[in-house]
């Protein structure tokens, strides 16, 4: 077991990419606490699915946009499992709309969840990882939409671009403590978040992807698992794009 006896926290863990990450980490032997906001049924089902397979997972309700959530989740994990080796900041939301029509609430909701939620969880694990363990893995789930921007996503692009910069800066500070900090940038993945766009433009998007298919949550989880594994010990401060080649921007003749 690649991650035997390790403890992981995954935010936004009940659905989509987060769920795939929870399953991958648990299958690799980690004890996984995952945070969900509203999907209680999905969270409980995932908890049961992992337990049935002999793994250990615990669903914790919480909104990462609330500053107090991270501290509560992390202290609960430390009280129960005594350490935290892996943090996957995956919880994310979109509130798409053209900027002239975007109200402040749409901006703040996206920034509070995608960027400030990432900050809060990194902050909450930092004392434990930096001073007590002197080891750890942090993976922030970003998006290709930070670098390859779309109309209607000023808030989302800004939040993910900030996560990328934060990832690099934190990697520098944590390096001497054997803590790696990386980000993964998914392209078009088949999740609830991308459903509306997929329904509208799925076929056109597929044509733009050299690998000729949309991504699956597992495609992202595999890379997250790699970054959390001993094999990635020398990788830090990087943004790994996982998009089937979409961001190459090539015209496939």
């Amino acid at each position, binding site marked *: 077991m690649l991650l035997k006896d390790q403890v992981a926290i995954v935010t936004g863990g009940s659905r989509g990419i987060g769920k795939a990450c929870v399953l991958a980490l648990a299958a690799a032997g980690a004890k996984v606490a995952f945070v969900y906001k509203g999907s209680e049924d999905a969270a409980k089902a995932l908890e049961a699915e992992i337990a049935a397979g002999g793994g250990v997972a615990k669903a914790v309700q919480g909104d990462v946009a609330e500053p107090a959530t991270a501290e509560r989740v992390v202290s609960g994990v430390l009280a129960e499992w005594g350490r935290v080796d892996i943090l996957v900041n995956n919880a994310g939301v979109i509130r798409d709309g053209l900027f002239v029509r975007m109200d402040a609430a749409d901006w703040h909701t996206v920034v509070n969840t995608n960027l400030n939620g990432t900050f809060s969880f990194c902050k909450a694990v930092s004392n434990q990882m*930096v*001073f007590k363990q002197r080891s750890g893995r942090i993976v922030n789930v970003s998006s290709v939409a930070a670098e390859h921007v779309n109309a209607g996503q000023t808030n989302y692009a800004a939040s993910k671009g900030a996560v990328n910069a934060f990832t690099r800066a934190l990697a520098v*500070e944590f390096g*001497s*403590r054997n803590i790696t900090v990386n980000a993964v940038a998914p392209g078009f993945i088949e999740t609830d978040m991308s459903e509306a766009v997929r329904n509208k433009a799925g076929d056109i998007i597929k044509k733009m992807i050299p690998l000729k298919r949309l991504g699956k949550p597992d495609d992202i989880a595999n890379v997250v698992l790699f970054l959390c594994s001993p094999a990635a010990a020398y990788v830090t401060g990087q943004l790994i794009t996982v998009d089937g080649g979409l961001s190459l921007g090539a015209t496939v003749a």
Partner: protein
Amino acid sequence: MTLDEIFNRVKPQLVDALGVDEDDVTMASRLQGDLNAESIDFLDIVFRLEREFGLKIDRNELFPESIFQGDPLFLQNGMLTAAGLDELRTKMPYADISKFEANPKFENIGDLFTVELIAKYIQSKLK
């Protein structure tokens, strides 16, 4: 507690925080110049000393930051001013600044942060 007794308890903390060999740590060792401490290591050292000695240590007291903010009152043309040296004496009464004040180049200020400085600071706190 004597300085030597304190030193013997500080040494393992530095070995753990900085990943250096015990033999590398002497009273005269400079944290940055000799033991390669980075800024995050200073925080680490403070936490460890608090635990080891059961003290509450104000980080700004052990490693005073006022000097490092670039205030022109304290710092001009890369040199500490007379007011800057006074500030050092006030904030770090346990530091030996006699050598530094002869040529108070800011870039050499790290030389003040020695293991002996820590030991003297702890001793003053324990009194």
